[in-house]
Every structure is written in C-alpha cells, then in structure tokens.
C-alpha cells in the first residue's frame, strides 16, 4: 500500500518502533505464522509476548510432509490441514509472523 503521507503523520503515530511493535499492530488481526517442522498457521492473533508465544484463535494449521518413495526415490509433497478454535503456540518454534498473504 501506498504510504504517501509519511511526513504528515502526527507524532503519536510515529513512536519508536521495535520489531515486536509490528507484531503488536497485528493484534486481533489475521496473521500467518510459519513454524519449524514445516508447519504454517493462519489465525487471528489474540496475544503474544517477547518470546513469540502466541495465542491464536480460529486457526488453520498446515503441515507439509515429504514422502520419499523407496523404490523410485520420488518425492511426494503432501500437506495436512488441521483446524483449531484456540491455540497456544510456544515461541521458540516460531519462525515468522506476517499479515496473511493477500490472495
């Protein structure tokens, strides 16, 4: 999006931003979380902290699995999806958090 009016922002909106502040902006919004173990989450961010522990609501979890066919050595990528109404995520396995990819 066009951020044309950066210079015209009133001071209160221009406070010093840490990286975690950006996560704060995503509170109560839908976010996309990539985690270790080839997992991805998409849900509404209700809470977070400095360790990136998160509470997500209405979550869809996508697990990517690669199967290798023993004979043909062919790689098969599969995904497994799960739904959770409310989910607590431990922060050490979080790789990234972002607004949902606009499709």
């Amino acid at each position: 999006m066009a951020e044309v009016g950066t210079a015209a922002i009133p001071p209160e909106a221009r406070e010093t931003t840490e990286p975690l502040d950006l996560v704060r902006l995503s509170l109560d919004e839908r976010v996309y979380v990539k985690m270790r173990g080839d997992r991805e989450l998409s849900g509404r961010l209700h809470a977070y902290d400095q360790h990136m522990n998160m509470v997500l609501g209405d979550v869809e979890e996508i697990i990517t699995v690669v199967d290798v066919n023993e004979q043909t050595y062919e790689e098969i990528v599969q995904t497994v999806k799960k739904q959770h109404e409310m989910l607590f995520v431990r922060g050490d396995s979080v790789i990234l958090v972002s607004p949902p990819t606009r499709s």
Partner: protein
Amino acid sequence: MANSFFGFDTTLPGRGDPRAFPQSRRNDRDTFGEELGGALEDGDGFEGSRLDELMEQKFAYGGPQDVGLEESEEAAGVSLEDDNADLNDETFGASAAPETIGTDFDFSANNELMRESVPSQPDLDRLNGQGYRDHPRASMSYRNDQWDEPLPGEMSRRPSQLSRENLAEIWNKPQSASSATMRRQPPPQPYDNPALGIPQRPMSLEEIEAHMLRNARTENRHLEEIEAQMMRNARAHGQMHPQGYGPTQSGVDRHMMSLAEVEAALRAQHGPIPPQHMPANLHNAMTMGGMRPASPRGPQMEQAGQMRSQSPRPQPMDQVGDGGYQYRGQRAPVQLGHFFPAQHRGQFVHQNRQGYPRNDYQQRYQNDRRGFQDRRVDNRPREERYRGIMNQYEKELIAKIQISQLVTDDPYRDDFYYKVYTSLTAANQQTSDDQSKAGLNWQQSLLMDQTRGGGANVTNRMQQQMQRLIEGRKQKPKGTSLSLEGALGKISLSSVRNPRQLLQVSGPNSTKEAKDLPAPQSARLSSKQILKRIEAVYSDVLELEVLKRKGPEEDNVDEWNSQIEQCRQKMWADLGVAEPVPLNFPHPFAAFLSFAKGKKVVPRVFRFLNRDQGLALISTLLSRLESIDVCNAASSEEVDIFMSNVVPTVVSVIMEVPLFVVNACVRILLERHNMVWLARSKPGLAFLTMFLSRAEMLKQGGGVAQGLPPASEQELAMWTDIYNFLFASLHNNFASIFPPLGPSATAADEVYVWQFLAAMAVGATTVDHQRVLLTEVRDKVLETARRTDDAKALANVNLFLNALGLGIDAAQLANMSL
C-alpha cells in the same frame, strides 16, 4: 725507614698504637686538640655516630702534627692508619731520594696560569671531586709553597702530591679526554707558549710570589685576561666555547670562577653562547677534572653570591640573566673565585664536606682565612655543624617531594602486604583494649581501617589532601560545552560522562519532529499508521484501566488523580478527535473504526471521556459515517462488531442528552449524508432509531427524570422540522430499507428495521406520516404478518403496528387482508 718517592718514612703508626694515643692526648690541650681528643675519647669502638668524624680524620691530610703547632716530630702521622703505602717503592721508585728531587717543578708554567684559582691537591683528593674551593688563591699559593719547599718531614706526609702533579698534567692537556691517559702523558706545552701572554718558564718561588702579588692587586684585570686567554685557547683548539668551563684547558682552575661572573664577562665580550655545547663540555670537564657534576647547587650559588657581594669586585650582576642557559640546574660545582687580598695568600680554605654554614659569616670568614695549616677538625655537634645549610623553603620542598612519593591513594592496595603485616603483628603484640585488634583477623581489621577516619600525622593528612584533590578533580565539571565569543554555536567537550557520539544515526523521531504538519493534510493514513494509532489508544486505555483498578495509594490521592488526568489527555490526543479536520480529508478516528480493534476500543475509551469529549466523539463519528466501513456494505462480522460495540456506547450517551443535542446530531446526519443511503446501512438506521426514540422520550417529558429541563418550544419546533425533513427524504423509500432477504435471512435480521419503522411511526407528527409509512411498507407488513409460524416476525410487525397506534395486531391484520 722505608723509602718513598719523596724520601721520607711513609710507615704510619697503627690506630691502636699506644705511642699515638698518649701523644694525641697530650695534644688535647692545643687549639684543636680537644676536638681530636674528644673524638678519640668517645670510645674504643667505631660507633656509627663517630664514623663521620673518624673518616674525616683519616682522610684529613695529616693530623694536628701537620699544622705546625705540633712540637714534637714524633707525633708525625700519629693518627694516620695504614695508607697503603706498602707499594710506594714500587710505584714511585725506591731510588728517589729527597736530594735528587729538583725544585724546578713548573714544567708548564702552570703557576702563571693558575695563580688565580687552584684547588689544593689534598682537598681535591680528599673530597674526591666536590671541588669546592673558597680560596683558590690560597690553595695555589700553598701549592706553590709545596712545590718550592718540600720539607722532608712534610713530604713524608703528603703522598698525594704525586697526584697533584698528575693533576697539573691533566690540566695542561686540553685535548685529552680520558683521565687515564692524562696521567701518563707528559705536559704537552713546553715553556713559553707564545699563545699565552705570560711567561711560562719555570719560576722560582720568589718569582711566583711576586707575580701573585702583582696579580692580587689587579684581580679584575686578570680575570678578564684569563677569560680572554681561555677564549683564545678555546678558539685555538676549535672546541667548545670558553665560558670559564673550558675543561681541558690549562684553565681548569677557571672552574673556580662563579658561573655568573663568567657569564657576565663573556657576555661583555661575546654574544650569547649556544648553551647546548655547555652541558656536554661541562660533564667532560668534570669527569676529567675528577670533579663530579653535582645536582643543583643552589646553596653554592647563593653562597657565591654572598661572597661575591662582599668581595671588592664589582661584577655587573644584571648581566647574569637567564639568557637561556639551560644547564643552570646541572651547573658544575664550581666555586666562586674568592679573591682575597694578598695577605690571604698563604692560607688554605678548609672546606667542610657539606659546605659552609651560611648564616655564620664570622665563622666562615675565619674558616676562609685559615689555611691548610690552620685546619681544624670540626667536632661540634652535628646539628650545629650542618645548621643553616638549607632554608625553610628548601626543606619543605624536599619534604613535600618525599612525602608525595610516600602518599598513596589507597594504601590498602598499594601497600597491602605492609598493612596486613602490621595489623597482624600489632594484633600479636597488643594486649591493650583501646587499640586492640586481637581477635580480628586481618580482613576484619582491614575493613575497620577502611571505614575509620584519617589519622593525625602528616602522611595521613597529605593522603587526605590528595584524596580531596582527586575527588575535586573528578567532580569539577569543566563544562560539557565550550562556546567561544563571536562563534556561532557551542563546541561540546566530550568526557566520560558525555561521550562524543561517533556515529550519527537518526532515529525515526529525531530529525523530523520539528516539522509537524497538520495531521491529515497531505494524504490518507496508511493502515499501518492507523494501526499504530489504535495501539497507542489501547496502551492508554490499558494504563487507565490499571490505574483505576489499583486505586490511589494511601496518601497520594492527588498524584493518582493527576496520573489519571495525564493518561486521559494522552488518550484523547491519541484518538485524534481533538483536532478539527477538514471535511474533505479522512479523519483518523473514522479510520479507527474501520478496524475491528478500533471498534472494540470505543466503549472502553468512552468510560474515561467526559461528556463533552464523548459528544465530540459522537459528532465526529456521525459526520464521518460515510467513511466507516460498516456503512458501506462491509462484512456482517464487522457490522456486528460495530453494532455490539459502538452503537450501544453511543446510545448510552445519547440517552442522557437534552433535546437540543439530539437536534444537533440529527442535523449533522441530515446535512452530511444521504438519508436513503444511510437508511440502507444498519448502523445508520440504528442511529436514526436512537435519535428518534430519544426525541420522543424528551417530548414526552422523559428528560425531567434525568434532571434536564423540559424541552422548550424551540427545541420541539426544531425537532418537528427535523422529523419532517427526515421523513421527506425517506419518502417513497421506506420499503427499500429492508435488508435484502437472502436464503438465510431470519426475522432477527429485520428487527432493527422494524424498530426504526416503529420509531418513525411514534414520532410521526401528522397523520399523514403514519399513512404514508403504512402505505409504503404495507406489503412487507402483510407478508410478515402472514408468517405466523415465526413468532419473531409477528413480534416485529406487532411492534410496528402498535407504534402506529392503530390498535390492531398482526393477527388481526392478517385476517383483515385476507
């Protein structure tokens, strides 16, 4: 009798020789005998306190017997110990007999050259380089005497004459640099060196004496002559500048002249002389001459000054400036040529090892007048002997230097082992109570001492002073910035406390705060910025809620109140409602409400707003409804959130306001928005319903219960106008306000519409209104009434019908229209 070079018996009686002592005792009654006797009477042993005296005696040239006051010859050499004369025969040749030794000694006419200032050989030897001579003339005359009249007996007592001769050789050789070689080389200058303006042939004693007498009368002239000669010599040798310190010239005796006088004289003749030559030469001279360059000889200089002032010599002292003579501090220990009249010629100046007591002129003068013959052993108490050498300033200076080396900032660090050791040994030794550190280990006593105050002695005081100085230096700010006059701006001085920033990294706030443009003038806010604002509001709200929850501390109600007030103001500012925004620009608060977060924060914010602020918020909201997403076909979720959060809040506010406020709000709506469009949105309808019902309440006097005055005629009239206007704008469109009925539409979805319709019906001012209302929604009404299975639908219809006041209910209507 062992033969020596001079042909006298050089064997000396031992110290313990009973022959010696009685004789010395016999001489106790003589002039200086008591001194000697006193020394000897101190005891048999060599105590440390007597050692100095004994050393003096030992190295004194001869004893009382040499002075000539001694009657008997057997006392010759009585107090001399072994003088290592065993090898004299070997050294000097056993065949030398006194009678074979000639008296023509002056191989290099030294007498002429050195008639002014010649240190006596014995003194030179004895003092081993200190070379202070008060009376060179006297010494030289002595020397002449010695050369001329070597008494057999006397010569046996002067083994060091040989070295004096060598010294003469030394002084004859300006070029040679090593003392070793000098001792071997023969004097280089033969007789009658034409460069020297004086006869150089060996002279007899009488001639020398006569010469000296002449010289005595014309001291000044000689001095300058000597200096001239020295300079010429120096130039001839092409060496250092003659400053009276020409080391290897025949004028080594000229060292004896005071520095000041020489400088003055030379200035008169020369220009300023580069001083850098001089220290090197000086050192050369001193080593060669066997004299040590000593540390600053302030006393000597002053002594010389005093003497000089008393001498008849008029020396231009003002020429003795600093003049860039660097070596003042390293000045050779030369002594003023103390030029006495000829009657002192035969006298030798006895030089104390430490110099003269300056404040005792009489004694000093006496000392000066004494020659070698009159030499006395100074057996006075030591304090008296050395009194007055330094003045108070010098003593304090030395003391300060020493103490400053002793003083440490932290004795427990610098002298740790000492401190611990003393505490341990003190602990062992002490049994007294007052200072007992027994029972404490050294660590505890260490801690104790650290906290104790300072002691009373000098060291502690100095330490404390140093401590204070250090602290003061640390704390004294030399200022963090320096501003020069006439310069624009300040220079900031960096220190530990304000370090200079090496990198200049501009943060997001740092450089842009100055330009505070009016908020939304240029463009709309990005979502990120809006989110930031929302989060800011959330922070404030949370803080306020925490404050409220915690409540005030015991006594700090005011502080708590002020904190709350501060937070509220911040929140109000963050809301962005305070600043008026031109209508063609997006309002930040309206942007708030586009986010679910923003909608949700509204009720919480309202809790902390006062009435005016709340109304301002509402009016802003109402005027900006067009930019709010819920009014523009947003998702039902957002609408729901809005309806559940924002609308009730607004309702709660509106239900408290008087009619004119209602009028004002509805007017805003009417002016700003298209009613048809507004009526098609759920929030819009909700607001309208709210206002209508409130107005009705107020019309019917509902405000009285809330403490409001009854609606005035004006307000009522105004309201009537507003209603008519509203009705007129919605005319023919009432049917369209119903939400489009989808497959899952339920009666609940329509509730708000029926409520609105009911409100309109209730507020109808004329019968026409009602008729129109009914006519337009008639189909809808009937259709809904027929849905008898749906109780909610029936309830909706009944609501409307009751509001119309027709007195029929849905069932009846259904029956009727069938």
